[in-house]
């Protein structure tokens, strides 16, 4: 009788472990899917809009895309990313994406500052500039 009980307990534990693993896997899959969506919103859509802007001449559609769609897309993507980081803290893919976002933001800011500094230097070297 004792042996049978032990076997039953072992079987139950195994079943629980399998169920937990399956749940973790499905959660991880869900987090991965959400991370893909966040990636599209933060990077793919803004880069695509920037690319269109490079190719096409500035028209009303591009102004709307740049002024409204780009910030909204980045905002929603980052919000989704933060949601994933809080709800699924062990998901590796979202952690990597967040790191990429932060590094990209720092690089863009640094580039912008360098560009600004260069422009100021150029302007201060100009004498008798109109206006």
């Amino acid at each position, binding site marked *: 009788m004792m042996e049978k009980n032990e076997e039953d307990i072992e079987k139950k534990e195994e079943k629980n472990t399998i169920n937990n693993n399956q749940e973790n896997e499905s959660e991880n899959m869900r987090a991965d899917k959400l991370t893909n969506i966040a990636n599209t919103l933060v990077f793919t859509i803004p880069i695509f809009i920037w690319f269109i802007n490079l190719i096409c001449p500035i028209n009303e559609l591009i*102004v709307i895309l740049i002024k409204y769609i780009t910030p909204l897309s980045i905002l929603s993507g980052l919000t989704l990313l*933060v*949601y994933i980081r809080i709800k699924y*803290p062990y998901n590796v893919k979202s952690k990597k994406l967040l790191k990429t976002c932060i590094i990209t933001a720092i690089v863009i800011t640094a580039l912008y500052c360098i560009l600004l500094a260069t422009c*100021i230097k150029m302007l201060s070297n100009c004498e008798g500039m109109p206006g």
Partner: protein
Amino acid sequence: MIIINKINFPIYGTIIIVSIIMGLLFNYLFLKKNNIKEKNILLYLFLLFIYSFLGGILFNSIINFSFENYTIGLSSYGGAIGICICSIIFEKIDNSNGIYIKSAILSLPLIYAIAKLACFFSGCCFGVPYKGLFSVVYTEGLNIPLFPVQLIETIAFLCLFFICYYNNKNENIISITILLSAIFKFILDYFRYSNINVFLSINQIVSIFFIMISIYLFFKKRYNRNVCN
């Protein structure tokens, strides 16, 4: 009389960045004091920074809507709306009994007060013509004595920040902070040069909207308390 000459330094951007950093620092310390997890605070601050910045750009694009004028600028009300939306979203993600919203709302007067110094030194958002005490002259701008409305805004909002912060245990502090900020903004907008012949500016319309929201929040809280009792 204060005379401000042209400054060969990106003073506007520098002070704006300082104001945002001060706001983030205040939020960090306030949330830390209220026992919020370090990791969640950092994620919140990251999101807050992006929302305030892009909120300012988006709002400015909406109020200055034109297809011909292809410029980008920052609006203080846009930043404030962005911060409010961010705190509400984060409160939904990581429920903390309204600490995120309280922290964001309390930091708004501080950010605005410092940001107005940027306007003062760069010569934008200036006041109506005035020849009294502390009048300011921008030699690169209109070159006439003007009312130092940006400095008055800085002083008023700093006082508001300290008063609200020391009363942060008050259960209606969120609605009180929004109400007082909107009233200050509404009144001080009449002293701006750009609003001389304007009955109600867009900022004042948004202020009225914020006043209504604060009154709604106040009565909602009161109603909820009565229901609980």
